[in-house]
């Protein structure tokens, strides 16, 4: 299985080089001012997950006002799943629409992006033309590939995501920092650990991390089988969603929680869901990926959408986003490309909160999206039953 990791790493590196060499020409000033002029007066329908109060507030309180200064109105269209937005774009394509679409911008990544890209649903070759994309390290495999699929300028990053864990420092002195340690810990404290059953997004990510860390599907699943009897309810029941695991953790019924949102403890404490004594930790290196925005090819307000996507990369807005008081999610900007002061602000953001990790360690790239389903099937077969 080491070979798998190696091949992934190789692929990542190669892809990074590829993107770097074929990188689109930087946008000319005249070009962008034209976009700005066109965007003026447009209302951008941004379809994004609507169940996170902090993200909604960030959009309403920072993105929308900033866009308004440029004459662009941001209309947040809340969805319960990104696929609702993709479904709409697909339906428009079926109906033969090539312009005037209802979706201008989608918060997207992974499978949804990949399939849409294959079907040619997204606007091509725009992301790297955004003026603020110069702050982004497009050579990074976490940025230029989305679940191993080259982004190719069809989506623009806006949030970093890292898979982290949480514990309550009032209940647990020192959490396990590796999977073998986790197993040992579970054996010593039966019934105090569990994870959501795939296909829940977080549960599936946990399984992928185990597989990656332990060097292969077979080894990963063997580990999970061994872990199972020491889980919550003896492993006979899994939480069916991350919400349920959050609830168990908040209730003190299990000792650890997990999330692909690096700021989930921060936000949970703000919501009143978690006690202030919770702390983040990593088990092995964190899985990392990136949240992007994409523009459908038939979007009615392409210019406006580009302006908003560009704003999302604005160092000031990124600093707000990284600010634990606002969102606390990792920035997608490369500090090395920023003026020193701004870079420091971004770097320092995480250290201002006990609920955020300053060092995510060496990132673990995601597996190709196409492998999700087979892994889930294998997990169901070999662990759940």
């Amino acid at each position, binding site marked *: 299985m080491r070979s798998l990791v190696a091949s992934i790493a190789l692929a990542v590196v190669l892809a990074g080089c590829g993107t770097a060499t074929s990188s689109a020409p930087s946008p000319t000033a005249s070009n962008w001012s034209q976009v700005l002029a066109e965007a003026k007066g447009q209302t951008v329908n941004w379809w994004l997950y609507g169940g996170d109060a902090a993200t909604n507030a960030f959009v309403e309180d920072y993105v929308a006002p900033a866009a308004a200064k440029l004459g662009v109105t941001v209309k947040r269209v809340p969805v*319960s799943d990104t696929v609702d937005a993709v479904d709409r774009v697909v339906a428009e394509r*079926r109906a033969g629409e090539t312009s005037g679409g209802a979706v201008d911008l989608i918060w997207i990544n992974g499978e949804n992006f990949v*399939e849409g890209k294959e079907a040619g649903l997204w606007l091509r070759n725009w992301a790297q033309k955004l003026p603020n994309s110069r702050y982004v390290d497009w050579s990074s495999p976490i940025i230029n590939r989305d679940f191993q699929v080259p982004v190719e300028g069809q989506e623009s990053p806006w949030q970093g995501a890292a898979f982290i864990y949480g514990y309550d420092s009032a209940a647990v002195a020192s959490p396990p920092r590796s999977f073998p340690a986790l197993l040992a810990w579970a054996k010593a404290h039966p019934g105090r650990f569990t994870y959501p059953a795939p296909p829940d997004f977080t549960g599936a990510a946990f399984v992928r991390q185990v597989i990656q860390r332990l060097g292969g599907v077979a080894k990963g699943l063997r580990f999970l089988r061994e872990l199972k009897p020491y889980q919550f309810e003896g492993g006979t029941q899994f939480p*069916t969603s991350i919400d349920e695991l959050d609830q168990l953790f908040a209730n003190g019924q299990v000792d650890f929680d997990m999330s692909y949102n690096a700021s989930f403890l921060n936000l949970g404490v703000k919501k009143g869901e978690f006690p202030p004594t919770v702390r983040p930790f990593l088990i092995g290196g964190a899985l990392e990926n990136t949240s992007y925005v994409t523009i459908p090819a038939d979007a009615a307000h392409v210019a406006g959408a580009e302006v908003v996507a560009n704003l999302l990369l604005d160092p000031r807005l990124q600093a707000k986003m990284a600010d634990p008081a606002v969102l606390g999610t990792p920035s997608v900007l490369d500090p090395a490309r920023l003026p020193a002061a701004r870079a420091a602000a971004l770097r320092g953001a995480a250290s201002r909160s006990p609920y955020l990790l300053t060092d995510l360690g060496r990132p673990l790239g995601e597996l190709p999206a196409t492998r999700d389903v087979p892994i889930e099937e294998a997990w169901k077969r070999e662990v759940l039953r």
Partner: protein
Amino acid sequence: MRSAAATARGATRRVPPDLLRLAPALLVTTLLFGGALLGALKQSVEPPLGGGPSTWSLASWRAVFADPTFLDALWFSIRLAVISSLAAALIALVLATLLRSRGPALKTTFSLPVTVPHLIVAVLAVAWLAPGGIAERALGSLPIGVVHAQSGLGIVLVYVYKETPFLVLLLLSVMGRTLRRREEASAVLGASPSQVLRWVVWPAVRRPLAVGSMIVGAFVLGAFEVPLVLGPNYPPTLATYAYQATQTSPLSGQGKAAASLLVAAAAAIALGLAALALARTEDG
């Protein structure tokens, strides 16, 4: 007597004015409903956008029926529909019998849940019955899981809570004075209470009960937002299967989604017509 008179009156009138009156409703229903079915059908046989076969085919239908998850979803949905409608019908029958001689205040009170949207009932179920919910806080622990229960108990509870009052109202509308009079007439002719129930009350209520339960069953077959909130991770209901099909694969999933929704529609219609036919033949 009344219906005989109505028929006689109808027969003496010419038909065209009535057809004219029906035409707008028929036209709109044909356009909207027919259009919807046609649209779903088209989507289920169209080539997917993302590649694969580029001509119309039954690939989605084949894929759906070859998918064990779909078969589980179909079975799960039917089971939930049957259990929910039977439970609702039974409770409604008992409630209606108890309520029929009571005042309008009590009847109105019992019909209150009719006004609560399904989604809110689901929210309530979560607040009360989820792990860490009120019930668990008050009682320490719950003997059975409800929210996300594998059995689908949460879904059943929501539909029973929400639809039973609807059935009660339906039943009370036929359990009025006319029925009471027939019951009296039968009692003085020597029919015991159980005979009255079997021969007088039951024949009067079974048709609305069948029609009502069939609507409840159809609701459950098409259940979407409630299982999304309360259903188990597996199996999905038919509607959530359709949703998950596009979640897993936004493009190739569309045909499967349409196909599974059409199966749900067909099952619901079949169930409905069967219930109607059953109610009719029992009359004979």
